[in-house]
């Protein structure tokens, strides 16, 4: 197992190296971070800025400079703000982590419940309703659902309840001076988490339903039923646990992708997470920030893919890693 993990990590290094170079080349050849100084009253500002950041050097030279620094633990500075990239990534990551944690937690609970219900009540009215809602959830873009949620649960509900503001906030994750786990935090969290949750739940519900149906039609479940084991016990003791294996791996892989940020959700709800950091950095050609973002999100994708494989082996004794 350990050898497998080390080998997988070593295999990932070239992919990370190539992806950082390709992204660096793409950002540097497409965006000019000094462009904001072109209309400056002082014509020398543009040239001074380019010299300071070495923007006239060939792209491979600039990349090599970044690579040398990152190996030494220096993530560099933002060309826009001069702030340490590490501190920008840390701050944005903490914010995105909150969304992912609550989003994945609620998605997992809801998806499992609906998936199991749909499987054991296959072709029932409830199954058709949940299937329809799942397809709707997958089809509706997050920004549409987010805007609808803001209008209905934020604005209209606030009016209906006669509140002096929205029922659920939709700017940031907290108001001034609100503490962790405060009611204010919850009121800020509901709409972005709901927007994030809908599409994930829709997709995971289908996985769980299919997995549960597969297990329910397996020989050992049929045998248990034939031996007179009560249906409830068969479902929850024998079928349910085994049906979770495929979903757990899907959850690990999907969660890893979320660490790169949720550009639409974060933009819609003015949340300064990884997605918005990436979007802003791309717009301003802030290559070092983009590289920092890629490293962090890339490492999470690699790590979670690995975790998914390992978990699969742990949960299913028939799977052996080599």
């Amino acid at each position, binding site marked *: 197992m350990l050898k497998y993990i080390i080998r997988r990590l070593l295999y990932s290094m070239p992919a990370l190296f190539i992806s950082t170079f390709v992204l660096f080349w793409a950002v540097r050849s497409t965006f000019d971070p000094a*462009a904001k100084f072109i209309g*400056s009253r002082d014509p*020398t500002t543009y040239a001074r800025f380019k010299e300071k950041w070495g923007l006239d050097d060939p792209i491979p030279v600039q990349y090599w400079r970044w690579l040398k620094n990152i190996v030494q633990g220096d993530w560099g500075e933002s060309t826009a703000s*001069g702030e340490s990239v590490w501190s920008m990534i840390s701050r944005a990551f*903490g914010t995105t982590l909150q969304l992912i944690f609550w989003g994945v937690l609620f998605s997992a609970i809801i998806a499992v419940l609906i998936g199991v219900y749909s499987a054991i009540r296959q072709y029932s009215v409830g199954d058709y309703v949940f299937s329809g809602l799942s397809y709707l959830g997958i089809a509706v873009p997050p920004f549409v659902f987010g805007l609808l949620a*803001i209008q209905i649960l934020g604005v209209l509900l606030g009016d209906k309840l006669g509140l002096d503001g929205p029922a659920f906030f939709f*700017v940031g994750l907290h108001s*001034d001076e609100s503490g962790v*786990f405060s009611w204010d935090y919850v009121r800020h969290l509901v709409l972005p988490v709901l927007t994030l949750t809908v599409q994930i739940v829709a997709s995971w519900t289908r996985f769980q339903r299919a997995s549960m149906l597969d297990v329910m039609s397996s020989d050992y479940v049929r045998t248990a039923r034939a031996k007179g084991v009560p249906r409830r016990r068969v479902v929850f003791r024998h079928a349910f646990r085994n049906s979770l294996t495929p979903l757990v791996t899907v959850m690990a892989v999907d969660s890893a992708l979320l660490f790169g940020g949720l550009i639409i959700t974060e*933009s819609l709800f003015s949340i300064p997470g990884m997605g918005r950091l990436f979007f802003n950095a791309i717009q301003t050609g802030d290559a070092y920030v983009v590289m920092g973002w890629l490293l962090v999100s890339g490492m999470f994708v690699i790590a979670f893919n690995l975790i998914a494989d390992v978990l699969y082996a742990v949960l299913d004794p028939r799977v052996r890693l080599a």
Partner: protein
Amino acid sequence: MRGKRRLATMMALFLAFALIAAGCGSDDSGTGSDSSSAATNGDGGSDESTPTTDAASDTVGGGGTLTLGAEQEPDCMDWINTCAGSSWGSWMVNYQVMPRAFDFAKEGDAWVYEPSVLLAGEPEVTSNPQVVTYKLNPDAVWDDKTPITCKDFIYTWEQVAKGEDVYDPSGYVDIASVEATDDTTCKVTFSKPYAGWKSLFGGLYGVQPAHLLEGKDRNAEMKDGYKFSGGPFKLESWEKGTAITLVPNENYWGPKAKPDKVIFKLIPDTAAAFQAFKAGEVLAIYPQPQIDAIEQINAGLDDVTSVISADTGNLEALWMNNGKAPFDSVAVRQAFGYALDRDAIVKRLFGGIGVEAAVNSLNPPILSALADNAAWSGYKLDLAKVDELMTGDGWAKGADGIWAKGGQRASIEFKTTAGNKRRELTQQIVQEQAKAAGFELTINNQKAGDLFGQQLPAGDFQLALYAQVLTNLEPANCGLFCSKNIPTDANGNTGQNWTRTNIPALDPLLEEVDATVDDAARAKANKEADKIQAENMVSLPLDPLPNIGLVSKKIKGDVEENPITSVFGNLYQWSLN
């Protein structure tokens, strides 16, 4: 038993992770016509905006917490550094906390500099050499009660003129010396005449506190936010990407701030900002004049004071490459001017918010006192005039209705920044009108970086639509139209005369505008320059990009639009009570 222990362990792990996740984001430590301004009510009524009152209130705070929306945040708060330069940074923080020598005030129909509360009166100005003597208000103090003195002026000058990585040292590098005659008298001697001296020791930089910054790394001290203040507010916190919070400066010697606290919440998305404003999550927004914002306003906003002003520092124009065919011909440029109904274009774009007249000067509306505001007024839709000018220049209309000369059709490439819906709509209207007059416009939009970074400086355009924005009351037209500023190897291709304007009679006038201290002589030269530019149709001014301020009626106090300091310029007077 084992199951219960496992459950307890799982719950403990869950709670620990939840606490870490929630705590990670709670980082509180970080410390943009008719030259008229009208305020309209959400119910369709209209009021004249109330002039700013400088009557000082005696008490600090008591006005509640104001939560306002902001489209952007600054990259940093070291205003002198290249990392600054953000308009939103100036509106939210700089103009609220930094002392400055001059304010921007309206006098009649014109915006003028007015000595701020930092000064004891209008400075004395002498010529040959130019010497400006500032008399400081003896009551002026920093928030720690340290008097604001000439030492602060000296420090500010040295930092801007001699510092590294400075955003724009213009004007400060023309200062030979800054001397303290006494604690409250400051003598500034210029090495050469500098007409825009009133923009110094204020504007984007303010006056910086020598006693707190001297001998220290200014950038390190200020870039992430700072606690000192010489204005009505102090910066309480800057939670990057989320919010900027201001509290009153209790030791401010001028009019005291009424709000107990002001929170600017960052809402980059316009649709989300309008939703937040309509729902009452933020009490004021200052959206860019884009189509969606105008549609939202026209859809109706209840209990809102709308401050919409065409009296801005913005000038959006059709910039013509005077060095490239067909616009290298004065007659063609003039004909193009008669081909368009500019008022109709402006009405289509901004008529919904009451802005219906085109700008008739290549100076933004806030410079109306220095400009010939009717210089382009003769250029109105006149197809007979187009025919006369074009045929007089040897052009003839082909079978397709497009002018042609020597086998060359009057086909013009029209560029602007891709993705800007308002500009794309403008292009479509201009294209349609031009076609009716015999000009074929081909739209070829570009990324902003490519357009402004490469194509315009290199002269790789025929017609471009973009805006010039002023952040003070100083004309900047020599930079844009003096022949010495055409990008060449001689000036390191840093010149900004991208239209390749080269009119010998124009250069000395625009240079005089930059070097003449006498306001009347300066205005005369600038008006004459406007006239010559219009006669030669160097480019075609279009609209003033109106400023839009939307403020909830829950906010009491004067709500007005200042083209430099924004709708938040008199924030200190706002209150919920």
